[in-house]
């Protein structure tokens, strides 16, 4: 016999996880950007030949005018905070303890802002328009986190 009334069911749960390895090749453009950070502590963007804008992070195609970006421009290392947030609650995607400050930072000479973190300062003292510069990791591996964070300049 089985109970025909599904209102009496206490549902079961199956706990699992999808763990699939990925190998995201950075491609030639992002690789050149990350190598310059790793090897020289320099920041570079790409310029669109059509609209003349300098994009950081660099990429091959211009999101504004669809031009192919071929020339490189050195930018920064200083920059300006365009906007930011202080993550106060620990969210699963955040690898470290909170508070963490995420920000969009426009490097000097760039027309777009790059996403990164701000550190070395009381989160309550961060503001838009604030001048910042990168703090590089001691051991650099060719990864966006070779910039540990941006700190007040």
């Amino acid at each position: 016999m089985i109970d025909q009334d599904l209102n009496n069911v206490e549902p079961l749960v199956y706990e699992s996880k999808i763990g699939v390895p990925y190998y995201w090749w950075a491609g030639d453009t992002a690789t050149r950007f990350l190598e310059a950070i790793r090897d020289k502590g320099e920041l570079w963007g790409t310029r669109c030949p059509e609209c003349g804008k300098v994009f950081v992070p660099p990429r091959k195609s211009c999101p504004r005018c669809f031009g192919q970006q071929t020339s490189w421009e050195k930018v920064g290392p200083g920059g300006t905070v365009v906007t930011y947030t202080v993550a106060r609650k620990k969210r699963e995607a955040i690898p470290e303890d909170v508070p963490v400050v995420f920000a969009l930072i426009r490097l000097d000479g760039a027309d777009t802002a790059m996403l990164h973190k701000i550190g070395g300062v009381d989160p309550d003292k961060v503001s838009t328009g604030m001048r910042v510069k990168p703090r590089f990791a001691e051991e650099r591996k060719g990864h966006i986190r070779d910039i540990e964070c941006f700190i007040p300049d």
Partner: protein
Amino acid sequence: MEKVAIVGVGMTKIEANKVSERFEDMVFEATRKALDDCGMDIKDVGNVITASNDFWDGRTISCMAVGDAQGVREKNASCTEGDGTFGAFYGMTRILSGAYPSTLVTGHSKGSESVSSLITNAVFDPIYERSLGVDMVTGCAMQARAYMEATGATAEDFARVSVKNHKNAMNNPLAQLPMDISVQDVLDSEMIADPLHKLDCSPVSDGACALILADEATAKKLAKKPVWLKGVSFCSDAYFLGDRDLAKSPSLEKAAQKAYAMAGISDPGKDIDVAQVYDAFSYQELMWLEGLGLADYGKAKDHLAAGDFDVSGALPVNTAGGLLSGHPVIAAGLYLMAEAVRQLRGEADNQVEGARTAVVQGVNGVAGQSHCVWVLSSE
């Protein structure tokens, strides 16, 4: 353009954790309700569209797993990955192709089954951004700050959106978070990511919604008065947040202008009776209303404070409680369209007197990268 109508709508209750229904069970319930709503038999449905996302479902090609619950056997079935408003667009174009008299469009998600922060972190570029730990909430919090600084909007202004929408939800039996709260309650709720408090953020939700679209000849034979698709457009912006001015939404402005032009609307503030907009976060309702041309830039907060967006106001917004009161992602835009349909039929829980034209807006991507705008009409 040939006339296409929404003829049937069906929704599950939105809940924090639907333990008794799997995603296909929710879709079955919504589909059955939509068929019953218009008196249609599943065998008469011309084709089927699913709006779903494999990451949320935890299953690859998950649209193939809900087909049984949509009655797709021996039918043409296809899918879109983003918000349901975009799925409805696809459904409409299939009717306009002339190949199908009707389309069933369903959208579903069960936020409760995984971890929203990790799934929305995976929206970001894996080489340049993802390992920093940003997600939908922290990404949108940066937009909220940019909008505040550009317009002078305050945390109190944002809180008023939350107060209004949770209050509207009190008359909606399908809402997850009907609440009678104050501005102070929002400001006192936990700070998640400056300037967004917990009650500025939509909840994690489970739910499914179904719409049935039909051509004119089919629509006129069915049980309910058709709600006509008068205008629609969608428009995208750049992917990287730092490429955009986050305080503005030019892609929404463009989409709205095109949708209004198609619908023959020259003065949206005057011609639109009710609006359903994608309030995943409180501040977004203000931004999107301005992008839709329903308030001047930076002025939506003043209209809100004056009560213009209340159910009894000049332009009622998110009359069923919006997404702040329940946000099953992907299905969300279809819920907003379903509420617009109910308003235009005169059968809404918070009925706007004499509503004849509605605008609905859906979003794809982080911080409003892409927008879909619908103009619906009872005439």
